[in-house]
């Protein structure tokens, strides 16, 4: 009981040390482009955008305890909506605004409908049913994208032009960084809000939260809608970065990417997604460079799966969790000395 009320009432603040750390990190990121090549700049932009995709998953997995295997449909949906509108109407800022509005509406509606069916059960079988039903929803959207080739070009992929101000790679880096910062602040506000506190209560003990009078299904729906909208926005940013969309974005693999970002970094932390995305993307890049050494290094997915299994088994709380554990054990040692 006290744990629950603690979670419900806990205020979160940033200590001066953390603030200083954040400031230094931000300053470093701001000057990265001045002494690195375009490849690095694009890679970092990619990390910033995908981090929000991962973070949106953290709201589900880390803060609410939901496993959504169709989450890619929001991200890929955002990318496709932007791409199709740019192609059909034209690559202007007005169209971008339209794409944002449509993508937000699309993800909110789909999330609501999906949640209605996915969150029927509770407890053990509820989690399983949720995973299976969301998987089916994700596959339906992927299938739809592959069927309506006229709009999406199917598996070949859709190329499109983007508004002029996003065409400069260097500026895109700053837009992506800004996007990540703004979204992080918004999502942080959300998870620390009273609603966010209830989500954590649902994660820790859904039955108890329900007995306290919370309509847990409603709160799960809220989490899914917010996460869906956030990842749709990340999808639009991804469209601006890559100027390309294919159905790969909508596959289960794409969802698993987001899941891996959060579990590597540490679930239930939000920031973990940034660390996780950075780690996974850099590892992928590094391994692909080793392709010349041995053919096995081009099979990224095998490494992906291996990292994934190892993290789940041996580091279930991710990098941030391991860090806190280290701090705690150090403090304990100090106390005993």
């Amino acid at each position, binding site marked *: 009981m006290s744990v629950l009320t603690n979670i419900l009432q806990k205020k979160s603040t940033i200590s001066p040390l953390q603030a200083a750390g954040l400031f230094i990190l931000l300053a470093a990121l701001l000057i990265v482009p001045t002494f690195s090549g375009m490849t690095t700049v694009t890679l970092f932009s990619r990390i910033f955008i995908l981090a929000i995709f991962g973070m949106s998953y953290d709201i589900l997995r880390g803060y609410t305890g939901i496993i959504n295997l169709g989450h890619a449909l929001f991200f890929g949906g955002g990318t496709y909506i932007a791409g199709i509108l740019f192609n059909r109407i034209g690559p202007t800022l007005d169209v971008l605004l339209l794409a944002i509005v449509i993508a937000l509406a699309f993800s909110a509606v789909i999330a609501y409908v999906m949640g209605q069916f996915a969150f029927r059960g509770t407890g053990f079988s509820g989690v399983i049913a949720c995973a299976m039903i969301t998987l089916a929803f994700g596959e339906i959207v992927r299938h739809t994208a592959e069927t309506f080739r006229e709009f999406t070009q199917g598996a070949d992929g859709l190329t499109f032009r983007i508004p002029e101000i996003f065409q400069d790679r260097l500026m895109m880096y700053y837009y992506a960084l800004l996007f990540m910062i703004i979204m992080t602040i918004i999502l942080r506000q959300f998870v620390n809000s009273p609603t966010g506190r209830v989500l954590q209560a649902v994660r820790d003990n859904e039955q108890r939260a329900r007995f306290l009078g919370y309509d847990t299904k409603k709160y799960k729906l809220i989490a899914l809608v917010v996460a869906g909208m956030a990842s749709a926005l990340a999808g639009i940013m991804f469209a601006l970065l890559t100027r390309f969309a294919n159905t790969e974005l909508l596959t289960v693999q794409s969802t698993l990417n987001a899941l891996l970002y959060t579990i590597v970094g540490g679930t239930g932390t939000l920031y973990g997604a940034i660390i996780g995305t950075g780690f996974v993307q850099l590892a992928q890049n590094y391994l692909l460079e080793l392709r010349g050494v041995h053919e096995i290094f081009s099979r990224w997915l095998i490494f992906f799966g291996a990292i994934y299994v190892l993290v*789940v*088994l041996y580091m279930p709380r991710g990098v941030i969790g391991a860090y806190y554990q280290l701090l705690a054990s150090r403090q304990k040692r100090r106390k005993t000395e």
Partner: protein
Amino acid sequence: MNILAMLLINGLAEGALIFLMAAGLSIILGLLGVVNFTHGTLFIWGGYVSIWVFSLFGNFFIALAAAIIAGFLMGLVFERLFVRQVYGNVTAQILITLGLMTIFTDMVRLLWGPNPIPADRPEFMDGTWIAGGVIISQYRVFLIVVGILVAIGINYLINRTRIGMIMRAGTQSPDMVQAMGINIKVYFSGVFAGGAALAALGGALYVPLVGSVWSGMGIHNQILAFIVVILGGMGSFYGSAVGSIIIGLTVALVSWFYPPLTVYSTVLLLILVLSLKPEGLFGTAVRS
């Protein structure tokens, strides 16, 4: 009328294939409380191993046996090394089986290449019968027979034998069974590996039906099997049998009249059933 009879056979054959997947999933879920996302991957491995062995020996039944053995061994490894460590933790189970799914699906592409490989039906079953103006594919009849035999066999194993009794007792209270001097962990491994072998058999039988094997066929069939498992009621063996027939017939019917709707129809059916009966057709509580 002729079309209906043909669709009935097609649907039942399709249902029998889905059943091989869904039965394994359902048994693993019902007895071990584990949701196994590697099932589609085992399905693919069954398909690839069978055509590989078929190309070596040229015997369809040796190929099927090889697929079953491969599935069984993979299931054993998965359970022993990974799934066993996360019993009781649903989220970790889902995550870890998803990771294995990724690794072993890509392993197929590494070993056999990314492109589909064509596969022929065994010659002695390639023919058709004509009965009352209806063309009946022998292979589909064979699938239906296999499905029925597997259903009867599993039902007998679980409900009529000592092994089945121990498994059911182990589901209720593993510690008690262990205390009576029976190593329940071996039985759990056996259940998991048995379910895996069924999935591999399903894959091996699926390949000759569609005429080729490719790495993407797993996820599609896995989703169908999931739909069956939820539709029939999670953990219910009868539910998965009835669900397989329903989904098989739906797929056959819709793909005959309007193919683009096939994928949607199964999910719509699931949604319909869940709105009327949230726990599925034969749903009971799953082990928690």
